[in-house]
C-alpha cells in the first residue's frame, strides 16, 4: 500500500473514498475529460446547426459575417489565448516547490483576462443592439438566412460567456482556497481539472471566432 506515507499536504487534498493521491488525481482528470467530451457534444448541436444553415444560405452568412466586429472579436481572441497560456502554467507551477504564489498569481491574471473578455463582449453587444443585429422585425439585414447567422451569433457567444463566467469563478475559487491552504494547493487535483476546463472554454472560442467573425472578410 502506498498509503503508508502521506504528507500533510496530501492529506488535505485527499477526499473520500481515496487513499492514494496519485490515484485520486488520475480519477479527477479522467472525470474532467469525460465532462469535456460531454461539453463538446453540447456545443456540437450549435455547430451542426450552423454548418447546415451556412450550406443552405452561403451568401447570407457571408454578408452577415461581415457585420460582426472583427476588432472586438480579434481582441477577445487574443485575450483568451493569452489567458490560456497563463492558466496552462498553473498545474506545473502549483506542484513546483516555491512556485505556489506564482501559480496563484497566474490564476488571478487568467481570471482578470476572462473578466476583460466579458467587458469587451458587453461593449460589443451594445454596439450590436445599436446596429439592429438582434433577429426580429427591426433586423438590419434583409437576405434570407442572415437572421439565422445572428441567431447563432447570439446563442454561441452567450452560451460561451456562461461557460466563461463559470470558468472565472473556478479560477478565483482555486486562487482563494489555495492562498488559505498552500499545502492543499500543491496537491489538489482541482488545479489540473480547472485548467483543463479553462482550456476547453478557450478552444471553443477559437472555433466561434473562426466561424462567426471570419466569414465575409477578405477574398
Amino acid at each position, binding site marked *: 500500500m502506498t498509503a503508508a506515507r502521506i504528507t500533510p499536504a496530501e492529506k488535505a487534498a485527499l*477526499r*473520500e*473514498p481515496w487513499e492514494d493521491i496519485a*490515484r485520486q488525481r*488520475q*480519477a479527477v482528470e*479522467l*472525470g474532467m475529460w*469525460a*465532462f469535456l*467530451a*460531454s*461539453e463538446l*457534444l*453540447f*456545443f*456540437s*448541436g*450549435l455547430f*451542426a*446547426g450552423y454548418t*447546415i*444553415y451556412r450550406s*443552405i*444560405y452561403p451568401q*447570407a452568412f457571408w454578408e452577415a459575417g461581415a457585420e460582426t466586429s472583427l476588432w472586438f472579436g480579434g481582441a477577445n481572441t487574443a485575450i483568451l489565448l493569452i489567458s490560456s497560456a497563463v492558466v496552462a502554467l498553473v498545474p506545473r507551477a502549483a506542484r513546483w516547490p516555491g512556485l505556489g504564489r506564482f501559480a496563484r498569481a497566474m490564476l488571478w491574471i487568467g481570471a482578470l483576462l476572462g473578466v476583460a473578455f466579458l467587458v469587451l463582449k458587453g461593449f460589443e453587444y451594445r454596439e450590436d443592439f445599436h446596429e439592429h443585429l438582434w*433577429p*426580429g422585425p427591426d433586423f438590419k439585414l434583409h437576405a*434570407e*438566412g442572415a*437572421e*439565422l447567422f*445572428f*441567431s*447563432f451569433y*447570439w*446563442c454561441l457567444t452567450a*452560451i460561451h460567456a456562461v461557460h466563461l463566467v463559470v470558468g472565472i469563478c473556478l479560477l478565483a475559487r482555486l486562487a482563494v482556497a489555495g492562498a488559505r491552504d498552500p499545502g492543499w494547493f500543491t496537491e489538489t487535483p482541482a488545479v489540473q481539472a480547472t485548467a483543463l476546463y479553462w482550456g476547453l472554454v478557450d478552444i471553443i472560442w477559437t472555433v466561434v471566432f473562426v466561424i462567426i467573425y471570419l466569414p465575409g472578410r477578405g477574398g
Partner: protein
Amino acid sequence: MSDAVLDDTSLPHDVSTFDKGYLGDGHTLRSWLLTTDHKRIAILYALTLTIFFFIGGVAIALVRIELVTPAQDFVTADEYNRLFTLHGIIMVWFFLVPSIPATFGNFLLPLMIGARDLAFPRLNLFSWYLTVIGGAFTVYVLLAGGVDTGWTFYTPYSSIYSNSHVIAAAIAVFVAGFGTIATGINFIVTTHTMRAPGLTWFRLPLFVWAMYTVSVVIILATPVLAMALTLMMAERFFGVPIFNPQGGGDPILFQHLFWFYSHPAVYIMILPAMGVVSEVIPCFARRRLFGYDFMVYALVAISVVGFFVWGHHMFVSGESPYANLVFSFLSFVVAVPSAIKVFNWTATLYRGQITYEAPMLYAFGFVGLFTMGGLTGLFLASIPIDVQATDTYFVIAHFHYVMVGGTVSAFFAALHFWWSKITGRMYPETWARFAAVLMYFGFNFTFFPQFIMGWAGMPRRYGSYPPEFQIYHVLSSAGAVVLAAAYLMPLGYLTWSLRWGRRAGDNPWGATGLEWQTSSPPPTHNFDKLPTVERAPYDYHPEGYVETGEAARTIEASQKGGEQE
C-alpha cells in the same frame, strides 16, 4: 457519525443482534439529505423515482379512462394533450432514464467492483439534487396547468404556438439531464479507477459493463438534448428563428437534434436492464453466463451503433431517401447484438438447474417482452411499413414493449434480486411471484391490443376515435387496471417486508458477485476487508463448491420433488 438511537424502540425486538449496516449509520433526515454514501443516495433516488412513477402512472390512468369511450367525454382535448405529455415527460426523464442506473447502479457498482464508494461521492449527491430540482420544475408545470407539446417538444409548436408551460418543462428536463450526466461521469471514472485487485475488464459482471456503456451513451447523448432544448427555449423566449421557417430556419433540425439524444435514450433505458437480466439468469439457472465475451461486445456494439439510427424516427419528415436507406439499414444492424444477447440468455438456461424465484420470473418477462418489442422494432425499421405505422398505436405498443415491458420488468427483477442486499430482509416469495406473473399478463393485456389497433390505423395522441377501435381501447384500459395492480403490489409487500420480512443472510441466492460477499445490508464502508478477485464472473459450480443458503434449500426441495414455499 455514530449510531443514533432515535427510533430503535420502534424496531422489532431482536434488533440488537441485527447489524443494520449503512442503514444504521444515522437516522436523522440530515443524515440522509447530506449523505455521500452511494447506498443511501441510491435509496434517495429510489424514493424520488417511485413518487414520479406513480405521478406519471396517474396521468396515464386518466388517459386510459378517457379512451374507454370513442367520444371525448371525460377530459377536454386540451387536458388530454397535457395528460399524455406529462406522462411521457415524467416516465422518460424522471423514471426510465435514471431508473436502474441511479438506483441499482448507484447501490451496486462500488459493491460489484470491490470499492468503498463511487469516485466522486459529493458529485453523486449533487446529481440527486439536480434530479430533485428538475423534478420540482415538473411538479410546478403540473400544478400550473401542464404542458401540451407531447414529450417530444417538436418545434415550431413548442417554440411559437403552444400556450402552456413549455419553458418550465424544458428546464426540468435540462436540469435532470445534467444530473444524469454527472452520474454517468461518476460511473465511468469509478469503473476505470476503482476496481479491486484482480478484477480485470473481462472479469467484470455484465451489470458493471452495462453501467459503463450506458454512462458513455449518457455523457455523449444528453448534452445534445440539452442544446436542442436550449435553442427551442431561446426561440420561444427571445424569438431567434433557429427552427422557424419565417426566419429561414427549419423545424426538422430540432427533430434531428432531439432524436440524436432520444434514440440513444432508448439504449440508456435498455442497456441497464440487460445488465440486470445478465446477473439474474445465471444465478437462477446455476450456470455460467453463455458467451460472456460476446455479451460484452454486444453491449458495446449496441451503444455505438445506437448513435447512428436516430433518423428512423423521421422517415416521414421529408428526410432524403438516401439518408432513410442508411438509417433503415443501421436500425437492422443494431438488432443483431440485441439478438445475440437474447440467444445467449436462452443458451445460459440450457441444462441449467432452473428455479423460478420472483427475480427469475421478472427476468423471463423481460426477455419475452423485449423480444416482442425488438422484433416489432424491425417492422418499423423497414421504411414501407414505417410509413404505414408512423404515429399509430403500433409505435406506441412497440416502444412500450421495449421501455416498459423491458426496462420496468428488469427494474422489478433487480428490486427483488437485490432487495435482501439493500434491506437485509427477504420479500415474501409467493406474493412476489404472483405480482411477477400478473405484471407480465397485465402488460400484454394492455399493450397487445395496441399493436392490432395501430396496425388498423388508430393514430396516437387522440382522445376521440372511430367506434370500431373501441374494443381494443377497452381491452387496453382493462389491462392497465391489472398492470396498475401488479405495480402496486410490490409497494405493499416490500414495505411489509421491511419490518416483518425474514432475515436474509448475506447471500440468500448463493450468487457469485462481490456484492454478495459483504453483509446484508452492507456496512457504510462496504467491505470490512477489500476483496481480491481470482476468477471469471458467474462461476457457478466451480470445483468443490457446495451450494448454500436459499439456493441449497431450493435445490434440495426440488430434488425431493416438493414445493419449497
